[in-house]
């Protein structure tokens, strides 16, 4: 593990020396042409090695002698105090023969998440995952045609203030094709996953053959098939607009769980899911835009491709689970002020039988972050947000319907070495946030023994940094 980290650090240094600065300066144009959640196109990275990264690191206190924390009652809440997260994006790009128009590229993005920084916890461990490990071609076969195979994040545009992709956000191992021509873009993807959960995978110990260790039998192995289709039409450049329609299909075959103790098997019926959604985006100039999304997801898809359903209907399926999302996100810039804003409403209907199900809920959040550019490199951002969630049924502990709510206000003086802009990164900042949580939020979030339970007003004072360049973010 230590050797791996050293190697990565070495490669980072080498890659950084090869990378041109100011990728962010190009981000404006790219925002128009590509979905923000995907790596920059193969045509935009240098031949040979290239490097990018996204990272955020922060630390804070609640001014009460405890670690700083951010009470969140919704699925996608305000992001300022999020746990550290780091992606290292390595690219290696080549050409088909001497034709530099036709490219191939390897994209490898290890990521570290979970907030367990060695310098904070003292433990030399990290949660590590591969976020991207795929190969792609550009303009091979036809101009505008891209192919990819591997494991990747496959996403559209985000609602930045909540770190949320309201329409399309897949983590997939599979293959895909993209074709762009005359302001149209067609994207098709298909992949499989098999979560390490009894819902999809089970192994049982079996008696040894003769003497020796116990054997294993795989009694359940049912990968989920996920496919998506997205069609985008761009209208103009600056100003411009785009409209996308999006759909997914999920399918899970039937299988059986076997009880480890009794060896009694339980049938798991096959299941499926669907997504239908659309996005309307418009922009006046770089970083002045508005996106609107609508998404409807049913069945398996309502949980996302990495989600394991926690409750079922009488047929032990989730076909009647439903998610509805409406969201908007926007940004406006001037010489002295920039404003980010975003909001969403999300409805989740649990498939379990009966009305007044506490697992069914409606939630929403809205946030606005004006940023004043006191000078080219020194800015002050303010952020105000509100979030709430209402379940359909009685809370198990409280015995009543809860309406947890959180109001937040943040002040964030920051240094942005790349100049003005709400999306200018890196950004080194101090942060003070005050959150007002109502009683229902405290009951919903914390056990009465928790040190956080008694406080209706939560402070956060800390510092942090966020950067991105040449990455899946910008």
């Amino acid at each position, binding site marked *: 593990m230590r050797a791996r980290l050293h190697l990565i650090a070495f490669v980072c240094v080498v890659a950084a020396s090869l990378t041109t600065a100011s990728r962010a300066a190009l981000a404006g144009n790219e925002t128009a042409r590509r979905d923000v959640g995907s790596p920059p196109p193969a045509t935009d990275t240098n031949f040979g090695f290239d490097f990018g990264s996204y990272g955020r690191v922060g630390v804070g206190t609640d001014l009460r002698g405890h670690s700083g924390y951010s009470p969140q009652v919704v699925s996608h809440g305000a992001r300022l105090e999020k746990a550290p997260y780091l992606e290292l994006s390595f690219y290696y790009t080549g050409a088909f023969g001497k034709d530099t128009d036709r490219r191939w590229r390897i994209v490898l993005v290890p990521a570290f998440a979970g907030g367990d920084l060695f310098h904070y916890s003292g433990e030399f461990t990290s949660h590590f995952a591969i976020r991207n490990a795929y190969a792609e071609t550009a303009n091979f076969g036809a101009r505008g045609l891209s192919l990819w195979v591997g494991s990747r994040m496959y996403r559209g545009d985000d609602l930045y203030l909540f770190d949320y992709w309201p329409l399309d956000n897949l983590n997939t191992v599979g293959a895909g094709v993209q074709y762009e021509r005359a302001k149209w873009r067609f994207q098709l993807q298909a992949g499989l996953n098999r979560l390490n959960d009894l819902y999809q995978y089970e192994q049982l110990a079996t008696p040894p053959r003769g003497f020796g260790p116990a054997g294993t039998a795989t009694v359940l192995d049912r990968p989920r098939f996920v496919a998506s289709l997205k069609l985008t039409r761009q209208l103009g450049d600056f100003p411009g607009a785009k409209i996308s329609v999006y759909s997914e299909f999920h399918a899970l075959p039937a299988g059986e769980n076997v*009880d480890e*103790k*009794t060896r*009694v098997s339980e049938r798991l019926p096959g299941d499926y899911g669907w997504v239908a959604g659309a996005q309307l985006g418009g922009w006046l100039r770089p970083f002045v835009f508005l996106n609107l999304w609508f998404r409807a997801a049913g069945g398996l898809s309502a949980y996302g491709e990495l989600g394991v359903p*926690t*409750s*079922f209907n*009488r047929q*032990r399926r989730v076909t009647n689970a439903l998610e*509805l999302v409406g969201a908007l996100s926007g940004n406006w810039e001037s010489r002295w002020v920039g404003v980010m804003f975003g909001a969403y*409403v999300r*409805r989740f209907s649990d498939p*379990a*039988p*009966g*009305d*007044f*199900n*506490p697992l069914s*809920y*409606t939630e*929403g959040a809205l946030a606005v972050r004006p940023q004043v550019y006191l000078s080219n490199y020194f800015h002050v951002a303010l952020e105000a947000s*509100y979030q*709430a969630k*209402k379940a*359909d*049924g*009685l809370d*198990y*502990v409280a*015995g*009543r*319907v809860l*309406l947890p*709510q959180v*109001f937040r206000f943040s002040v964030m003086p920051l240094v942005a070495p790349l100049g003005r802009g709400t999306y200018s990164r890196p950004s080194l900042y101090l942060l003070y946030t005050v959150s007002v949580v109502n009683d229902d939020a405290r*009951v919903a979030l914390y*056990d*009465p*023994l928790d040190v956080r*339970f*008694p406080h209706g007003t939560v402070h956060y004072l800390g510092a942090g940094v966020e950067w991105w360049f040449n990455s899946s973010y910008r």
Partner: protein
Amino acid sequence: MRWLIPFLFCAACVNPSALDNNWKTTAAMPPDGDWRDEVIYQLLVDRYSNGDVNNDFRVVEGSLGQYQGGDWQGVIDHLDYLEELGVTTIWISPIVRNLETDANFDAYHGYWQQDFTQINAHFGNLGKLRELVQKAHARGLKVILDIVTNHVGQLFYYDINGNGSPDENTYGAGCGAQPPSDSQACPNPAVITHITEYDPDYDPQGVRGYTSLGFSGQAPIRWIYIPAINRAPTEPGAGAGGPIEKQRGFHRDDWYHRRGRITNYGVREQVLTGDFPGGLKDLATEREDVTAALTAAFAHWIQAADFDGFRIDTLKHVDHDFWRAFCTKLRQYTAGKIELPDPLAGLAEGLDEPRPNAVVPPLTVPKNKFFMFGESFDGNDDLNSSYTYNGEVDSTFYFSQKFSVFDEVFKKGAPTKRIEEQFQRKQQKYNPEGHPDGVGLGARDVLVNFMDNHDVTRFLFDKPSLPALYNALAFLFTEDGIPCLYYGTEQEFYGGNDPFNRERLWDTGFRTDGATFSYIKKLIKIRKAYSPLRRGQLVITWSTERVGTEQDAGMFAFERRDAGKTVLVVLNTSETKTSETSATTTGGMPMMTSFPPGTMLKDVLDESGVATFVVGAGGQLVVSVPARGQRILVPAADVVALD
């Protein structure tokens, strides 16, 4: 910013439901209602029907000592089954959170409570419970809740040896008689003493510390913290394990008797203060604060879920003063006459001190005749009846009848004179007067009659004979008091002792075309159709010591008289012989009834419809009944069509 809420949640703008924050309780029983009209059906929720697979955690299919998955949704799904059978009241097993498992047995039955304020999630959530009660009420079914005030689950142990861990210790060498004592081979011939700190034997001084060096004062209790299986201090409370001055509510050491497990049920002090077998820790109910806390805890559930009565567990294990206070307060509360203090309010939400001046939320509508009946698992009528006076329970289970009549007579063939003797004891012992704000009737009139339940073998286990079962059922549904049917009887379940008498009802497919289901359904219809069978005075017209081949061997007959109407029930408990209600062959007389001579009586149980009997001179009536048969005789002029 509450104005934002409608904007944000217009997608969920359904009207606030009756099951959530606008929940209302109801009266259910009308003011002139009579609990003698009810037929109680006892069901164990975990064994009735699995309506929601999402609460099936820890279910081990077919292992009856563990959760099977039944839930309130399952009861809701099959209320029509109960309606078809004809029962009018359901008694459901306890609803509060239990510890999950102990000694490899699960708390599917609900009697191992850990938290008086929270729902047992195995069965559903509060909304589902309310939905069950609401839908039962909509079908005219009342709902009785099973409650336990005597004990909590195996939540702490006695640290007898003071080492801070729960041990099972063995002291002594025990090599007494065999092999023969030998000073070298057996230097210490003391007997083996086995002490389990989970469930030590009763000690009238309280469980004491002990090591091989001897006793050492009261053994401290230590709470067991395994949150994953709900093993944690009883809630509501605060300060468990800390200094006594910081302990609150059910976390107080002195809220428990701490005397160890009952070893001699003949000693009242043990029965009242000892832990229930299985390490179920006995509450110090003689304390006023414990009484107040338990009263508030269970009153809360009446308000929260609109129950119509309580079935009270382990009645004889709790002192009279407690029942007097508990029952009186609950009657007044349900009648809407008092505010009930909630002395532990807020502790469940994490407060260190209870919220002052808190009260249990009042009922929306006062209850009419909230019914409280208790389980005193004893054949002693003096003991059982003692709980029916002085404002204590409205009624008890008629255990003495279960033993002396259903077991001795209907199963084992004892003379029917035992039935009359039992009846006389009832008349003498049980309270004839109702309590203020009670059910309006004395316990003597509303004893809850039963043949079997979850704590004893099923009738058919001891006596695998459907005729015998039908014989007993006929008595159960025609005698005075309130009949209580244990689930599965109608499906001819024959399980032995716990847990094998707690079978899964849904395995039967809820069939309603079986002979026994149809028979019970008919008995209930007959009972409903004829008020004397529900409310009538019971007058025994025939009983006998004879059980052999005599003319009246096994015969038992009684009239039920109400509002000028009379119904005559005649039973033959003989296994083999057709008998009749006469002893003329042995120098005796025929049965004398209250019917006028010439009255034609029709057997409304008889399927053919032709069994009739005519009353003779002076009211004499000889009724012949086949072996293990029964007749319900109604004057022809009073016969009504059954619904």
